[in-house]
């Protein structure tokens, strides 16, 4: 195969989006770290000055990435992955403890978080593995290897390094797996797991108006009954069974409420009883009609029962601060000076921005340091406070366009490796964006991960730059492929 270096098809749209985001990020860091008593224009004690250096470095890094031969990436994927794993394992032993986690390696003046590199290496390694001829994503054998590739760095980052946020990022790859053909049931189950967890915990402390028990489990069970009802209703062979099940459940609740007049009844247990009854009905129906799908639904129903209980148990076994973060996010507890302080102040910062914001450097919340981590994890506050809704709209639109562009680019690749890697990049970026902004606006528990290209700091900026430009490089060579 002759080497053809002639066809450099750089996707300038993506490069421009990247540059605009980086510039916006620098403006936000400037807004967040600018001080009232600041006198000199340039002083490398100021973070916005340091960030300029990081940005310059990132641009050099990006440009350098473009010079690397595109074949290099796939060829050395496993080696790179192995090297990064090694560094990850070593890190907790050599890294100093910073805010309870050991994840930063300090080399001279530069601190690097190997977890950032692990994201890239894992994406490359998985992409390479899945690019093998005859790979089938839905075969268990073929799925287990990428899963292990993903689980190993995730485990190292979560357990010895105590960096839960960075570890969770790997879960984002479920989107890539979905695109590559993994059954959507896993995605749906993931969504259902989140939904039932939220319902169980959010309403776990609110008592029912009648009888004993709380809304948490009852609401989950009612949702399961609704799912069963809708499923059976859509069952072409026997929609009438939907009404039979609904009737049985309603009867159970009615009896319980009548009995409740004389004897106190735990309505949440009754709701579980109703689901169990419905599940048995479905199993019997399935066996008698030789129809398999109702069996799955019954299994799902029983699974939710166990899941709801384990969600409660999980909550009991979490670290107190983690439990509190979750409860604050779900609105179960209000804690504006304790665990909820960050989020509350972040919401105040963003909410006080109004339509057009307070102007660059005019944000009192961020300026007076009410919002902690205002130039790193909570950088989006500065955008919201100083540039208002319009600023936030602009920034989120840029991200959305970038994400859609990445999907578009991934789909135009001629080889699986580039496409899978492109989806990995999009998934990571999306996860960071969704978690970071969601945390700042108070709909996701506080998980400390940076906002790509925005948050202050070289490690995150450089690794995202590297991650993105590897894909741009791969994309630029798409014409060279077969």
């Amino acid at each position, binding site marked *: 195969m002759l080497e053809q270096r002639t066809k450099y098809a750089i996707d300038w749209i993506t490069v421009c989006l990247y540059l605009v985001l980086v510039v916006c990020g620098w403006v936000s860091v400037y807004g967040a770290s600018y001080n009232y008593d600041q006198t000199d224009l340039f002083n490398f004690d100021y973070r916005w000055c340091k960030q300029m250096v990081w940005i310059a470095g990132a641009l050099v890094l990006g440009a350098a990435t473009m010079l690397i031969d595109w074949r290099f990436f796939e060829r050395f994927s496993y080696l790179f992955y192995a090297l990064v794993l090694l560094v990850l394992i070593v890190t907790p032993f050599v890294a100093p403890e910073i805010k309870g986690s050991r994840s930063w390696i300090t080399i001279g003046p530069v601190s690097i978080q190997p977890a950032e590199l692990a994201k890239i290496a894992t994406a490359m390694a998985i992409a390479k593995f899945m690019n093998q001829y005859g790979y089938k994503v839905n075969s268990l054998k073929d799925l287990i290897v990428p899963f292990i590739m993903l689980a190993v760095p995730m485990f190292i980052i979560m357990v010895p390094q105590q960096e839960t946020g960075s570890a969770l990022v790997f879960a984002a790859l479920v989107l890539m797996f979905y695109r590559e053909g993994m059954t959507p049931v896993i995605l749906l189950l993931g969504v259902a797991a989140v939904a039932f967890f939220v319902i169980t915990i959010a309403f776990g402390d609110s008592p029912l108006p009648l009888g004993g028990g709380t809304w948490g489990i009852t609401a989950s069970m009612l949702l399961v009954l609704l799912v069963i009802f809708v499923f059976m209703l859509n069952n072409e062979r026997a929609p009438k069974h939907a009404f039979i099940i609904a009737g049985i459940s309603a009867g159970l609740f009615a009896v319980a409420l009548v009995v409740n007049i004389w004897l106190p009844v735990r309505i949440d247990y009754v709701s579980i009883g109703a689901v169990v009854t419905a599940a048995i009905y479905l199993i019997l129906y399935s066996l008698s009609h030789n129809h398999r799908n109702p069996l799955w639904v019954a299994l799902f129903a029983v699974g939710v029962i166990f899941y709801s209980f384990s969600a409660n148990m999980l909550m009991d076994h979490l670290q107190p601060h983690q439990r509190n973060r979750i409860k604050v996010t779900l609105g179960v507890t209000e804690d504006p000076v304790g665990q909820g302080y960050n989020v509350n102040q972040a919401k105040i910062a963003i909410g006080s921005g109004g339509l057009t914001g307070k102007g660059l450097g005019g944000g009192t919340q961020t300026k*007076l340091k009410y919002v902690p981590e205002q130039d790193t994890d909570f950088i989006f506050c500065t955008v919201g406070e100083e540039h208002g809704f319009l600023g936030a709209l602009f920034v989120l639109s840029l991200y959305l366009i970038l994400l859609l562009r990445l999907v578009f680019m991934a789909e135009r690749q001629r080889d699986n490796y580039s496409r899978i890697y492109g989806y990995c990049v999009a998934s990571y970026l999306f996860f960071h964006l969704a978690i970071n902004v969601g945390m700042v606006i108070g709909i996701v528990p506080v998980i400390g991960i940076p906002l790509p290209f925005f948050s202050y700091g070289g490690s995150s900026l450089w690794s995202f730059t590297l991650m993105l430009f590897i894909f741009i490089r791969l994309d630029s060579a798409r014409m060279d492929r077969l």
Partner: protein
Amino acid sequence: MINDANYYRHGVVMWIFILVVSGYLCRLFYLQIIEDKYRRQAESNALVHRTKYAPRGLMYDRNGVLLVYNQPAYDVVVTINEMSKTGGTASVCRTLGIDWAQYEERMSEIKDVNRNRGYSKYTPQIFMTQLSMEDIAELQENIHYKYPGFAIQHRTLRDYTYPNAAQVLGSIGEVSQTDIDRDNYYARGDYAGRDGLEYTYEQDLRGEKGVEILLRNSRGRIVGNYENGAYDVEPKAGSNITLTIDVKLQILAESLLKGKIGSVVAIEPKTGEILALASSPTWNPSLLVGRKRSQNYDILVHDPTKPLMNRALQAQYSPGSTFKTVQACVALQLGGITPDRTFPCSGPGSQPIKCTHHHGSPVSLLNAIEQSCNPYFWLAYKNTLEKNGYGKDNANFREQYNRWRDCVMSFGIGHKFEDSDLYQQSRGSIPSTDLYDKWYRGTASWNSMTIRSNSIGQGEVQITPLQIANAAATIANGGYFISPHLNKADSMLNRRHDAKVDKRYFPYVQEGMWRVFEYGTGRHYKIPGISMCGKTGTVDNNHGRPHSLFIGFAPKESPKIAVAVVVENSGFGATWAAPIASLMMEQYLTDTIARTDLKQRISTSVTNTNVKTYNQ
């Protein structure tokens, strides 16, 4: 891979991205545009509104002598949240001169939301108030690094040139929750006039508070002015007030009342301006300033001689013989007597009211005033009330009684001066027919005989010293008065009140009152060269010796001063009240006291041994 079976899924992924970002934008729209509370919270977070207190208006006497001014004072405030956790308390205590127990008590008071409704650990709470420069000097020096959380707030307190006129000037104190609820100008820790002129003229004196908007960082530290002070408001100083009081006269009045219980009121008849308003016992107004205020106030409240009561305005007495001057005017007006009408007097043997003086008989109006003849005024009263007989069901009598009451009240007696700036006046009383009907159970069961004591000012007639002074001013003016008042700027000349007695009758009464000083009960206290008019009163009461009263004015031709004096339980009107009134007139008319021995004698005499002096 064009023929990839899962190609369609890229659309799902894109939709996930679009939906999540859109959802976040909706949330942002809600947070930033719909919900308003975050903007307010951001402001209350970052902006500290610090009150800049306005200097209170000053008070001058009628001649421009400064009476009340401001002295700097300091409040120590503490922000609990910023306090050092590691101690420094002992040092704070030592600097402020308090002990550990006091410190603890004050802290628990501050943190008790029931007692300190505005408590927040993030905002400055008042720890100690009204400290002097010396008190805070040491704290001030090291406050920034040694005592985190503590700060000093500049205030002003009152100070006084003279230790006099406490009741007139009044005092200021910290506003109560009721004040705050009533007037939203006030906030916790503000001062407001509590009594006297400070209370009456609160709106003028207080000025307008300013505000300084400061930026506070998350550690509670002030880091600068918001927008460089663009939204700050400078305080407006309160307006100054010039009083009608002549401070020399006021000082004299108070010194003459020393050791006595009573009051002196001096009015400029033509203008209604109060020249002096003294009540005894009294106190040095500086005693109710600053930190010692509540402690001293407590002492004054519990003094059985009731110094806090402004007797000149609030005490009510039977006017006794001083009332005969008003009686004479009214009897002439209502036809009870004519100027040349005479009545017989049998001296101490007179019936139903005996005479306390020895004089010839029959007695004319002028003689009757001069000699304070009781039978004359009883008969004049009887003639007035019974002029038209009693009529059916006493109707004629009652009609005449109401006319009499109406005329007397037109001298400013038996009601408050509603258009005056005097605070807490008592009403006094001229009984109505309704009241007598109730007392005597029927409209026809009482007559001039039953209420005969009124004729000589001993019955149910009740006046305040202010009212009887005003009556003297009315007679001096020949039939009108301007409501007595204390603010010189507030000219009330166009609000003149005419007595319901014809002008032509007043010269007779003035002449009679002149004769009191020439030949009668006041003759010992005449100032040579000045034609003085007066009337003594000796009022029997249930509390011991008679009250000594005197009213008068001078000079007779163009009166410049009208005076009323009451000395409780001290003896004859001529013994105490008359010389005091005479000295007041001398001081005001000649600007000096020639009779120094008289002044000396009066001011050093003690008629009530319970009277304490509160002088610093």
